């Protein structure tokens, strides 16, 4: 590997100018006339320059002039140290390999690996190389390094996944990896058309080159793209994206037992519905299996989880002194439209929260609304924290029955509650982030919230990453959301029981409560149907059924059916799409090539040294001329 490299090596042709001083030196144009003088020995009394020293000076002058030219040429060639810069800052070639499941067809991925290896080995010497893999998401396989061998070794360990192609994911990731450096991206892909989604946009700095290596695509593939239970039957949709008519069989399995089978003929490029005369039960695990030995294997199965509606409990924690009045307004608000929301409000004293949470199926507990901290011991706080971390929603209504200390401990430093503030001046509520989910339902009437008058509030101080959803008109936060684990905790800096404000008597109160609860329970209501690439972290990115370890919830994972479509892009179409993105280069995403190296401004030092040498040359020349 080179210790140094040049940004503009073409300037090295300037080294030819070194011949000029050498030629002049060889010509030895003597500026000092020679005089035959008898009394030379008398001149030796003074400290004067001897001819031998003069000859030495001539050589020194020649060397200085050559060095000056060398430095001039070198300065313009813009050298940089590949050692000093390291793989973190030298030009980088990112080889981005498509590992979507369409690459699993026999021979496809081996061809991709071979082409990727060729790209790595063909990288310029002064370029670091990195390997990334992408399907729905992108990941680094080999970190930027000058070690081609290591990168190739890591590349060879790569296997295709179950995700769908997303070129923008791959390119965005590569661009981020290149950062401010110069470099290029080599995309190794089967160039599926569906890799560019309408919502996907890859932004590529103009100075980052892109090269696309097409590995070709399989000719035949059939895929199950949908299972649809209907009242009297079950329907499966099958796509033949190949070029041949396919005759195949489809099986329907319930809880791993085959309950129906069908033989079908699918024309090339056609999608057909396979109807099974089977009524599926309300619960169970359904799988449809397609026989497609030639195409991609992973899309030959599709899964469905049959789950009936479950009651969802909203736990309203009160002091327990008077259950009829505490949380009255809240309960009344939640009772509106109960048929649609399905919420079941449960009012319990703080002291009973621990056994209730422990005895309740976590899947059935939608959210906890905390109106008091009285009786909330440390065990209860830990249970609440665990509930939130697992995706549960908690609303803390910081009214007169809420003590700041246990809330602050529960919130884990994301924000701090301070004792209540009693002021003479009434305050109003002003939404801060109007685009937040809880405000969407208000539409144009969001301003009506400002009519709520607050006589007393709790002071909320933001310490960590918390988002202010609404403020009081004096600037203090009124409604703040804090993320704890996978769940959300929303703190309201006043009460909701008509004590510190008149909010319950305003028309906006019911939608306010509903939207907050809906938002908090959204995580718990989330679909149990996932697509590879977007599954919970603890679950493998493979299609099939899985159980979430934390909650015991059963989920189903399918591949993205779009990936089964073998329709392809040409390389030109791919490049054109990238070029289109180039027009919208984000200034934050990479700088021009030369600028990236200007961080290491060796040329400035070189020109400085050159000027110093020029001065030395001038002095020496003046002394000897």
């Amino acid at each position: 590997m080179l210790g140094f490299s040049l940004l503009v090596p073409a300037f090295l042709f300037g080294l030819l100018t070194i011949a000029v001083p050498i030629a002049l030196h060889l010509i030895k144009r003597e500026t000092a006339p020679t005089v035959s003088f008898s009394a030379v020995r008398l001149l030796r009394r003074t400290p004067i320059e001897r001819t031998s020293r003069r000859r030495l000076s001539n050589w020194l002058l020649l060397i200085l002039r050559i060095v000056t030219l060398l430095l001039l040429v070198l300065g313009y060639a813009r050298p940089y140290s590949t050692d000093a810069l390291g793989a973190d800052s030298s030009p980088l070639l990112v080889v981005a390999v498509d590992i979507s499941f369409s690459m699993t067809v026999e021979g496809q991925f081996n061809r991709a690996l071979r082409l990727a290896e060729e790209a790595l080995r063909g990288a310029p010497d002064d370029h670091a190389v990195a390997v990334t893999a992408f399907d729905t998401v992108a990941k680094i396989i080999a970190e930027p390094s000058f070690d081609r061998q290591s990168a190739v070794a890591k590349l060879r360990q790569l296997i295709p996944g179950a995700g769908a192609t997303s070129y923008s994911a791959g390119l965005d990731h590569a661009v981020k990896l290149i950062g401010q450096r110069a470099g290029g991206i080599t995309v190794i892909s089967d160039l599926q058309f569906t890799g560019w989604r309408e919502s996907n946009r890859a932004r590529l700095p103009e100075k980052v080159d892109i090269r696309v290596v097409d590995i070709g695509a399989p000719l035949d593939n059939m895929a199950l793209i949908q299972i649809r239970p209907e009242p009297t039957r079950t329907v499966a949709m099958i796509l033949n994206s190949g070029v041949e008519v396919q005759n195949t069989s489809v099986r329907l399995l319930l809880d791993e037992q085959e309950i129906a089978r069908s033989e079908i003929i699918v024309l090339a490029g056609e999608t057909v519905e396979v109807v099974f005369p089977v009524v599926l039960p309300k619960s169970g695990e359904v799988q449809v299996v397609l026989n497609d030995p030639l195409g991609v294997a992973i899309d030959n199965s599709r899964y469905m989880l049959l789950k009936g509606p479950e009651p969802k409990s909203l736990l309203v924690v009160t002091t327990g002194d008077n259950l009829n009045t505490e949380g009255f307004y809240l309960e009344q608000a939640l009772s509106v439209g109960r048929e649609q929301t399905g919420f079941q409000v449960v009012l319990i004293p703080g002291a009973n929260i621990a056994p209730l949470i422990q005895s309740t199926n976590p899947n059935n507990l939608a959210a906890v609304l905390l109106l008091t901290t009285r009786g909330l011991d440390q065990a209860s706080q830990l249970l609440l924290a665990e509930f939130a971390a697992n995706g549960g929603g908690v609303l803390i209504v910081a009214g007169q029955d809420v003590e700041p200390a246990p809330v602050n401990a529960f919130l884990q430093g994301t924000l701090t509650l301070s004792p209540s503030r009693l002021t003479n001046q009434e305050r109003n509520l002003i939404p801060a982030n109007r685009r937040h989910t809880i405000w969407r339902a208000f539409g144009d009437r969001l301003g009506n919230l400002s009519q709520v008058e607050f006589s007393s509030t709790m002071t909320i101080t933001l310490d960590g990453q918390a988002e202010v959803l609404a403020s009081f008109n004096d600037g203090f936060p009124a409604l703040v959301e804090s993320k704890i684990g996978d769940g959300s905790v929303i703190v309201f800096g006043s009460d909701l029981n008509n004590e510190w404000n008149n909010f319950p008597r305003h028309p906006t109160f019911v939608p306010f409560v509903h939207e907050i609860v809906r938002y908090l329970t959204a995580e718990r209501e989330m679909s149990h149907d996932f697509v590879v690439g977007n599954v919970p972290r603890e679950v493998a990115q493979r299609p099939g059924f899985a159980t979430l370890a934390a909650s015991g919830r059963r989920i189903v994972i399918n591949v993205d059916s779009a990936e089964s479509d073998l329709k392809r892009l040409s390389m030109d179409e791919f490049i054109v799409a990238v070029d289109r993105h180039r027009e919208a280069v984000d200034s934050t995403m990479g700088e021009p090539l030369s600028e990236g190296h200007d961080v290491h401004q060796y040329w400035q030092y070189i020109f400085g040294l050159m000027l110093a040498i020029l001065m030395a040359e001038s002095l020496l020349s003046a002394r000897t001329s």
Partner: protein
Amino acid sequence: MSGSGRELRLLDPAIIAGIGSMELRARTIVEGFLAGLHRSPMKGFSVEFAEYRQYLPGDALSMIDWKVYARNDRHYVKKFDAETNVECHVLLDVSASMGYGSRGLTKLDYGSYLAASLSYLMTQQRDSVGFMAFDDHVVNHVRASSRPGQLRAVLLALDQLLLGQQSNLAKPLHLLAESLVKRSVVVIISDLLDDPNKVVRGLKHLRFGGNDVIVFQILDPDELEFPFERATKFHDPESADELIVMPSQVRADYIQAIEELVAKYDRDLKLVNVDYHLVDTSKPLDLSLMHYLSTRSRRG
């Protein structure tokens, strides 16, 4: 311009250099010089009559034989034996350093004219004249004689001189001092750009034999004034050494060095009764002849 002025102008070394033969040059110089003299500085310095010779300007009037004048209406002076027995030796340095000349006239040219003039003058005085050219060894030697063709032999030797190698003045001085058998007048013409201590030792050797020694140090005006301005590479013709200097930077030191050299010769040679004269090649030759004659008369 007066007649004497015109004659003196003829003694300008540059004009003398334009004259064809060495004999003609010598005669021009000497006659021009003598024409400018109001009286001869020479006195009679012998008792035994030898012959008559025609009066020459500069001869003492007391030496004129008025009886002969009465008979022939011509001026003759008496010559005595002791006078003709004076042996003069002219030593001319022909080392390479004598080849320097800044105004169309080298130190060797000037020294040659001076040697020729002195030889001519000596011959006219009926002195016995010898000539020796040397650098680091004797390159030409015409033994001293007063025979009629001696002057021509000396002038011929002067005409054929070529620049030699390195100078070593002491060596021929010692050789000459050992070869002289009777007291002589020794005229040394050199730039004396040699080790002054060795030169003075050689001259002492000559003086030790009772010889009258006259030293003419011939230097070019450039060597005295160092008028160079531009950076110059100075080449020593004897040692072949070269130095590149900025004259402005070394002028003061050089002039001090040359003045110290001249002062040393002047001081040391006076101590041993050697007549020392610094001669600038830009100056007329008559000054040198005057020095010779004054020394000659003083010693006579």
